[in-house]
């Protein structure tokens, strides 16, 4: 089934036992009131959806194990480049080749690159030592992409993470953030869009991103409007 911009678009939120999916479901309901939203761990139901959200918090080692145990890793590999697909937080990190977390973890390999830990002793420009996790509202500098429609550049989004992604191909970076170092806050590949921050906790900017996703046709080329 291909994605459409129909009002009754079906959105599956992948439930694999990692973290609290209520927030993302509630935010999607609010941002896209006519969408049919389902939190599910069943591959068939995920396959039947027009769009897929891949959330997650916690440790990536356990995340990959849970995905594999439930047969969801293959589902994600199949669907992520097939229809509008939104990765959030750990759902971004798991898309890369490899993470330093959990003693070195192999990811899904959908976006070539690495996941690294923020180094100890990072400092702000004023010399203050930066706390890890990177927690709170930080600015995202956009590269043109339809999912940023209506969201001013450098808007703040809510982050909480200790690892960041580093795609090999810089053109895959759809948004950049700075915390002691520059890192990718959003990554794109075809109909796949994945963010390090939590749109479901990022008030207006986050809700707009979710609303954009709920009606996105999966074409990553920026629109002329």
């Amino acid at each position, binding site marked *: 089934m291909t994605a459409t911009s129909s009002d009754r678009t079906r959105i599956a939120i992948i439930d694999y036992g990692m973290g609290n999916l209520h927030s993302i479901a509630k935010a999607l309901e609010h941002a896209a009131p006519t969408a049919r939203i389902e939190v599910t761990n069943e591959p068939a139901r995920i396959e039947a959806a027009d769009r897929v959200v891949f959330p997650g*918090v*916690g440790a990536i080692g356990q995340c990959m194990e849970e995905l594999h145990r439930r047969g969801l890793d293959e589902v994600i590999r199949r669907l992520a480049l097939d229809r509008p697909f939104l990765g959030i937080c750990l759902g971004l990190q798991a898309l890369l080749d490899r993470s330093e977390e959990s003693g070195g973890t192999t990811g899904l390999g959908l976006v070539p690159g690495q996941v690294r830990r923020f180094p100890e002793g990072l400092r702000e420009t004023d010399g*203050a030592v930066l706390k*890890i*996790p*990177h*927690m*709170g509202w930080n600015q995202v500098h956009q590269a043109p992409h339809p999912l940023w429609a209506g969201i001013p550049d450098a808007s703040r989004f809510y982050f909480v993470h200790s690892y960041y992604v580093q795609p090999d191909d810089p053109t895959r970076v759809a948004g950049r953030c700075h915390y002691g170092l520059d890192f990718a806050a959003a990554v794109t590949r075809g109909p796949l869009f994945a963010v390090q921050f939590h749109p479901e906790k990022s008030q207006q900017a986050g*809700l707009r991103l979710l609303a954009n996703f709920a009606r996105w046709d999966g074409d990553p080329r920026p629109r002329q409007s």
Partner: protein
Amino acid sequence: MSLAKRIIPCLDVDAGRVVKGVRFVDIRDAGDPVEVARRYDREGADEITFLDITASSDQRETMVHVVEQVAGEVFIPLTVGGGIREPADIRRMLNAGADKVAINTAAVHDPDFVRVAADRFGSQCIVVAIDAKQVARDPDRWEIFTHGGRKPTGIDAVDWARRMVANGAGEILLTSMDRDGTKDGFDLALTRAVADAVAVPVIASGGVGKLQHLVDGIVAGHADAVLAASIFHFGEYSIHEAKDYMARQGIEVRR
């Protein structure tokens, strides 16, 4: 361009109503928690914290309903504290829509609870709340107290913060019992001692009476976030005014 310092209004909730006074004395009614949370969200709060100060089992469900209602319409991080004693309490609050829980007394009774909770739910949602009181000067020393500041424990506050972070706490909510409700400002020496001792973010709490206190907590206290209740509840200042004030002092805030 960097991470914004956070302003977190705190709602002390007793039997489904927002209250705030000098802690446990002279409690004033400040309204319906859902209404208040909605207003703070509109004004630009970066997060909202609910503290269930009744913490009696028959009122626990009231808090769950409050969180459910707020989480359905306020899309910023929500923290719930008070009466979080076992994993089932955490699960219940996360399911209701909370993003983090604050663990206080239960961590003192069983320090391993924080480790278990962080392993199961992730450090990002485990805040350890520390209520500290000064017990010595030159050198300064603070001890942690439980049961809303009534029960001394003999545990050093800075050591305790370090230990809780080692056990998996993702954030520390640090309240000065000496300052709470006084409007004299944060205990800056305490805040700085804890903030400098741990690698995770520290939220300063207790004593805010004017906007300069928020600035002091960040600049002199080295806090990553500032929490306040009464200055916002009774309309003395809006969150928006607080952010304008902080921005004018050169502090990065979300606007």
